[in-house]
C-alpha cells in the first residue's frame, strides 16, 4: 500500500521533493499542487537570462513538462489549496474537491511585499516573482523604454542590469544608504553601486517612492525628495513575505514562517514544510533562520524526502546564494551578522575580489565576485567553523588554499 504524499506548492522546493520521492515510486503516490499554470521552474532567471530573452521559457522548467506524468506524479496546476483538515488528514481545493493525504508537505514559498503607495495598482506596475510577471515586463521593456525600479536589493539590481543590457533607461530607487544593505558589507555595496552607475543606471540612495503617478497606467514615479521620474514601466523589488496563512489557519506553529524542526517537521507529525516559507534550526549557524534561496529549497526538500524514506538526517547546510549582474558573478555563502569583521581580499577595481566575514576569528560568510575559488573555500571554512588569520586572508600573494 503506497503512502499518499501531497505537496502544496510547485516551486523549487515542491518540485524537488516530488522528483526525489518519485525515485521510490512503489512506495509513494505523489500529488503536487501548484497555483500557477506552469510546472515547477527556476525563479532566478526571471530577473536575469529569462528577462533578457536569453533563454526560452522551457529552459526554466526544473524538469520537462512530460516528466511528471512519466514518473506517475499527479501534477495539478492552476489549483489552490483553501484549507487543511488535520484531523481528517485532508485538503480542500479551490474547485471544492477534497483530497486526503497520508503525509503533507507545505512548500508554499513567499509572495512579494507590496509597495504601500498611491498608484500601486496602476497597469505598468510589476513585481518579479513569476513567469507571468517577467513575460508582462518583456512586452514593455524595449530599447529606450524608461524603467523605474523600487528597491536596490538583488532582484532590483539584477533586473536593472538585464534591462540596461536591453537598452532601457533605468532608475533604481533605494531607501537605504547603500544597495543590498541587508545582505552584504559596505565594500561590496559600494562596488556594485559604482558598477551600476558606470553602466548608466541612475541609482538613487536614501530615497523612497512617494507615489506612482498616471491615469490609465503608470507614467511616472515621484520619489521621497519630490523628484519626478518618467516611467514606461515601474518594477517593485522590495522583498517577499512567507506564505503561512494555510498553515496558520490549520493551527500549525508559525513565526514569520512555518516553524519546522531539524528534520523539516512542523508541529503536526504528518505535516512537513520546506523552502522559503519555513523557519528552521540550522546547526552550523547555531540559530533558527528563514532563508530565501534555491539552495535551502532544494536541500530542505531533500531533507523531507530522506525523512520519508527512513534515511532521515538533521538539516545542517551552509546557506549559499548567487547573483549575476552585468559580467559580475557574485557567489555568497554563510549568513554573517552586521557587526562581523569584514576582510577584503583582492582589489575591487579588477572586478575580481572577495569579502570575508569573521566573528572572533571564525569565518561566517563570504561574498566572492568573479572568483569562484574564494567562494568554494569560504563555504568550506564556514561549514568547518574554521579560524582564519585575517592578515593572511587579505594578502592575495598567499593562495587561498594556503591561508
Amino acid at each position, binding site marked *: 500500500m503506497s503512502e499518499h504524499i501531497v505537496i502544496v506548492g510547485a516551486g523549487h522546493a515542491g518540485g*524537488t521533493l516530488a*522528483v526525489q520521492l*518519485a*525515485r521510490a515510486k512503489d512506495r509513494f503516490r505523489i500529488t503536487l499542487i501548484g497555483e500557477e499554470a506552469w510546472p515547477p521552474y*527556476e525563479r*532566478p*532567471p526571471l530577473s536575469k*537570462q529569462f528577462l533578457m530573452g536569453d533563454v526560452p521559457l522551457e529552459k*526554466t522548467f526544473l*524538469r*520537462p513538462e512530460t*516528466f511528471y506524468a512519466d*514518473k506517475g506524479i499527479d501534477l495539478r496546476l492552476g489549483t489552490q489549496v483553501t484549507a487543511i483538515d488535520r484531523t481528517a488528514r485532508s485538503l480542500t481545493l479551490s474547485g471544492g474537491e477534497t483530497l486526503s493525504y497520508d503525509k503533507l508537505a507545505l512548500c508554499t514559498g513567499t509572495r512579494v511585499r507590496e509597495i504601500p503607495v498611491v498608484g500601486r495598482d496602476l497597469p505598468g506596475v510589476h513585481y518579479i516573482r513569476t513567469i507571468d510577471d517577467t513575460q508582462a515586463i518583456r512586452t514593455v521593456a524595449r530599447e529606450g523604454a524608461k524603467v523605474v525600479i523600487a528597491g536596490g536589493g538583488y532582484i532590483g539590481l539584477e533586473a536593472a542590469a538585464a534591462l540596461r543590457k536591453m537598452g532601457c533607461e533605468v532608475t533604481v530607487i533605494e531607501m537605504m544608504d547603500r544597495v543590498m544593505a541587508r545582505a552584504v558589507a559596505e565594500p561590496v555595496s559600494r562596488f556594485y553601486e559604482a558598477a551600476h552607475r558606470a553602466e548608466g543606471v541612475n541609482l538613487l540612495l536614501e530615497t523612497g517612492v512617494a507615489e506612482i503617478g498616471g491615469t490609465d497606467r503608470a507614467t511616472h514615479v515621484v520619489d521621497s525628495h519630490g523628484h519626478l521620474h518618467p516611467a514606461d514601466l515601474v518594477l517593485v523589488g522590495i522583498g517577499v513575505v512567507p506564505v503561512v496563512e494555510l498553515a496558520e489557519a490549520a493551527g500549525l506553529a508559525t513565526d514569520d514562517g512555518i516553524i519546522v524542526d531539524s528534520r523539516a517537521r512542523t508541529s503536526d507529525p504528518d505535516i512537513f514544510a520546506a523552502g522559503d516559507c519555513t523557519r528552521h534550526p540550522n546547526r552550523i549557524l547555531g540559530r533558527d533562520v528563514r532563508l530565501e534561496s*534555491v*539552495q535551502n529549497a*532544494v536541500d530542505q526538500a531533500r531533507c523531507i524526502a530522506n525523512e520519508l524514506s527512513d534515511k532521515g538526517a538533521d538539516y545542517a547546510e551552509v546557506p*549559499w546564494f*548567487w547573483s*549575476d549582474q552585468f559580467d559580475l*558573478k557574485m*557567489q555568497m555563502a554563510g549568513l554573517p551578522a552586521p557587526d562581523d569583521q569584514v576582510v577584503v581580499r583582492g582589489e575591487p577595481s579588477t572586478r575580481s575580489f572577495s569579502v570575508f566575514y569573521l566573528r572572533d576569528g571564525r569565518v561566517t560568510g563570504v561574498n566572492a565576485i*568573479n*572568483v*569562484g*575559488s574564494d*567562494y*568554494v*573555500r569560504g563555504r*568550506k571554512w564556514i561549514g568547518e567553523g574554521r579560524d582564519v588569520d585575517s592578515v593572511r586572508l587579505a594578502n592575495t600573494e598567499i593562495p587561498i*588554499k594556503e591561508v
Partner: protein
Amino acid sequence: MPVIHITNRAGTETTLEAESGISVMENLRDNDYEVDAICGGSCACATCHVYIDAAWQSKLAPPEPDEQGLVEDEPTFKPTSRLSCQIEMTDALDGLKLTIAPEA
C-alpha cells in the same frame, strides 16, 4: 541521436539517448540521473559534477576559469572532473562516457 554512457552513483552503467544542442547536465537532469544542478546551469554551484572518461577528455573544450575554480575545490575533485552544465551535447560527442560524482 547521440548517446551518453552513464555510470550512476550506485555504479550501474546505462546508456542515454541524448539530445544535442542542450548541455550534458540538462540531458542528465531531465532524465532523472542524480544531478541536482541547483543553480540551473549558470555555473554557480557544483551540483552537476561528473567525471569524464579519460578517452573523452581531449574531445571536450577545456573548462573556463570559473568552472575550474568551482570544481577543483570540490572534495570529490579528480583530474577528470567537469561540471556537466558547461558541456554542450553535440553529435560529435556520440558515445561520451561519464560517471556521476558522489555527493560532496
